[in-house]
């Protein structure tokens, strides 16, 4: 097998060659050993189709949904993997975003069966003691597709069940509608018969009635109708006039009240005026006050001058008296005089204040009088206006009252006429009783005809509903509901059988998987001659370890033992489920086991390579960078 890489991992270009048999690939850590193996796995597995394969390849570090791609060299746009195996060329070109630009159709089963590394899902799960193997099932069988088909068929079956329910509902509805239609048609038929019967009866009566009597009856009936109409009109008019009259009376009362109020206001103003002095009296008194005030002011000046003089005299100690002109100042005399003068001044001031206050009051009185005298004409004018309005209304009132009286008389007269005509009609009615009967029949006929119309509407509505309910859409066709029921039942039966078949297929797949896997494990372990065996439960798809008669769970094994179980399972998987491509790759794991177990495993693979022409690649970490081929068991010891 030739492998050529370009822009893959850390390699710009790289070439490797593996020969038939067991190849031991030895390289230092981080020099591209795993990249080389992953590239081979990718060339045989891509393109990936299932979700589980994508998850597996992500876990192995072969491919990622999001960039950067683990295999494409950093900085390169795309990477190339070329594998030449058994005369076939497998080329894979993958770009840095993960898009496959070119590939030869591979099979994703390769990832699960033919390539084992510490990152493989199988190795990781077994390493942590997980015994469940259900997850491999979709990878190596069609069970996932059967389950998919099961879900689809189940959902279609549910849809047909819903269709069936709808069809049954419609059928039931139809039954009720048809019953209702029948009922309505019978009702219509009976009404039609009744209409016919009454029409004949009316015709018969009308032939028998005296034409003159009929004419008289018609005239009186018509008169009576006219009178009744006339009465209604008079009543309406009377009501209107009476209302108008009532309104006017209310208006008059309001006006009278307003006039009364104005009179009372005018009286109050007159009384207040009587209490006030006339303008002449006010002016006269004001003149007197002014005169007295002038005299008081003069007097005050004099008294004040005297007071000043006395104040000066009081300060003198001796000499001529400034008052009397005598030789000595008489202190006591001055003192008395001073007091009296002060008293006089005080009296004058007091009188001035009194007179000024009176003067202010007079001014106010003058203003009041003036205002009141101005109000009187306004009130008078308002009163006059109201009086005029009152007169106007009074003039309308009388004709209205007369009209009311006239209308009342008219009404009485009309009622009398109605009574007379009614009496006449009663008399004629008595005479032509049959006419009345015909009238009743006419009335009944009208009602029946209306009912017939409504029944006809009802019948057309029901007919329309029957039409709408009688068919339904079933996938691609509009079918009669009865047919829809038949079709749905048939489809349901078919789909239920199909579901049963799929269910069995799924069971078969699981059982077949377990049986095939168990057989393969048994053969591998027999060949390896290990002290234990492994068994998969066909229902639960769980693996247990058998040691003689004892069984133990994976979780109870040591780490190394779990790794050995993982390798055995991987080989068994390859043998049972994907022997198509005779290529088996194990990265490190085996070469880490103890010498005895590793030897047994390599011996097994050597045998497989000889008997089934397998090409095996076992990678190990080492100082040398080489690919060593083992062709016989003797050479195995060289590995350790």
């Amino acid at each position, binding site marked *: 097998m030739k492998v050529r890489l370009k822009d893959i991992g850390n390699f710009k270009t790289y070439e490797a060659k593996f020969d038939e048999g067991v190849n031991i690939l030895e390289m230092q850590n981080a020099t591209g050993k795993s990249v080389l193996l992953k590239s081979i796995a990718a060339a045989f597995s891509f393109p990936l*189709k299932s979700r589980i394969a994508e998850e597996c390849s992500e876990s192995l570090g072969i491919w990622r949904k999001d960039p950067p791609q683990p295999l494409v060299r950093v900085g390169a746009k795309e990477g190339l993997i070329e594998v030449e195996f058994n005369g076939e060329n497998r080329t894979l070109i993958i770009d840095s975003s993960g898009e496959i630009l070119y590939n030869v159709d591979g099979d994703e089963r390769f990832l699960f069966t033919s390539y084992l590394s510490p990152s493989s899902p199988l190795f990781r799960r077994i390493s942590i003691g997980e015994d469940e193997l259900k997850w491999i099932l979709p990878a190596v069988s*069609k069970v996932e*597709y*059967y389950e*998919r*088909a099961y*879900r*689809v*068929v189940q*959902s*279609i079956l549910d849809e*047909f069940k819903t269709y069936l329910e709808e069809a049954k509902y419609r059928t039931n509805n139809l039954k009720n509608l048809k019953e209702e239609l029948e009922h309505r048609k019978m009702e219509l038929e009976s009404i039609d018969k009744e209409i016919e019967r009454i029409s004949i009866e009316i015709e018969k009566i009308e032939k028998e009635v005296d034409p003159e009597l009929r004419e008289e009856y018609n005239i009186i009936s018509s008169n009576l109708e006219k009178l009744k109409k006339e009465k209604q009109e008079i009543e309406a008019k009377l009501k209107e006039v009476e209302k108008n009259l009532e309104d006017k009376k209310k208006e008059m009362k309001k006006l009278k009240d307003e006039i009364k109020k104005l009179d009372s206001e005018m009286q109050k103003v007159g009384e207040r005026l009587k209490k006030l002095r006339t303008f002449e009296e006010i002016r006269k008194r004001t003149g007197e006050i002014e005169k007295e005030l002038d005299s008081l002011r003069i007097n005050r000046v004099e008294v004040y001058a005297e007071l000043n003089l006395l104040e000066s005299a009081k300060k003198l100690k001796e000499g001529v008296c400034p008052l009397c002109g005598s030789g000595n100042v008489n202190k006591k005399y001055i003192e008395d005089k001073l007091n009296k003068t002060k008293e006089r001044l005080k009296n004058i001031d007091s009188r001035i204040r009194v007179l000024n206050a009176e003067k202010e009051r007079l001014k106010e009185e003058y203003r009041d009088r003036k205002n009141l005298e101005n109000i009187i004409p306004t009130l008078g004018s308002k009163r006059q206006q109201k009086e005029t309005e009152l007169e106007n209304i009074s003039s309308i009132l009388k004709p209205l009252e007369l009209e009311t009286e006239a209308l009342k008389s008219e009404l009485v007269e009309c009622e009398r006429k109605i009574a007379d005509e009614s009496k006449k009609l009663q008399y004629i009615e008595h005479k032509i009783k049959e006419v009345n009967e015909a009238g009743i029949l006419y009335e009944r006929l009208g009602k029946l005809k209306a009912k017939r119309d409504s029944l006809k509407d009802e019948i057309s509505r029901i007919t329309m509903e029957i039409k709408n309910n009688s068919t339904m859409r*079933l*996938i*691609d*066709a509009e*079918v009669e509901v009865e047919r829809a029921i038949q*079709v749905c039942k*048939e*489809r349901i*039966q*078919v*789909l239920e*059988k*199909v579901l049963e*078949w*799929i269910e069995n297929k799924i069971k078969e797949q699981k059982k077949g998987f377990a049986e095939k896997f168990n057989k393969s494990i048994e053969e591998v372990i027999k060949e390896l001659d290990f002290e234990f065996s492994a068994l998969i439960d066909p229902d639960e798809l769980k693996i247990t370890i058998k040691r003689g008669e004892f069984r133990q769970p994976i979780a109870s094994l040591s780490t190394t033992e779990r790794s050995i179980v993982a390798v055995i399972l991987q080989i068994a998987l390859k043998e049972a489920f994907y022997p198509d491509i005779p290529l088996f790759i194990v990265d490190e794991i085996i070469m880490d086991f103890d010498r005895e177990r590793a030897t047994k495993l390599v011996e097994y693979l050597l045998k497989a390579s000889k008997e089934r022409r397998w090409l095996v690649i076992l990678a190990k970490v080492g100082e040398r960078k080489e690919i060593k081929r083992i062709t016989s068991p003797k050479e195995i010891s060289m590995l350790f």
Partner: protein
Amino acid sequence: MENNRNIHSEQSINIKRIIELINKLINEEASEEEMREAIIKELEVKKFESQTEGHW
């Protein structure tokens, strides 16, 4: 009796047809949508009946 036998044989034909279709879809690794579309088409009133013409 004869009619029942007819219906049964007719059903068998239809079941066989749908199973064949599902097998084909599984081999083609069809998606759920593709499966649904194909099965529904097979169950269509017109098509379904044309396959077992004369029985309805």
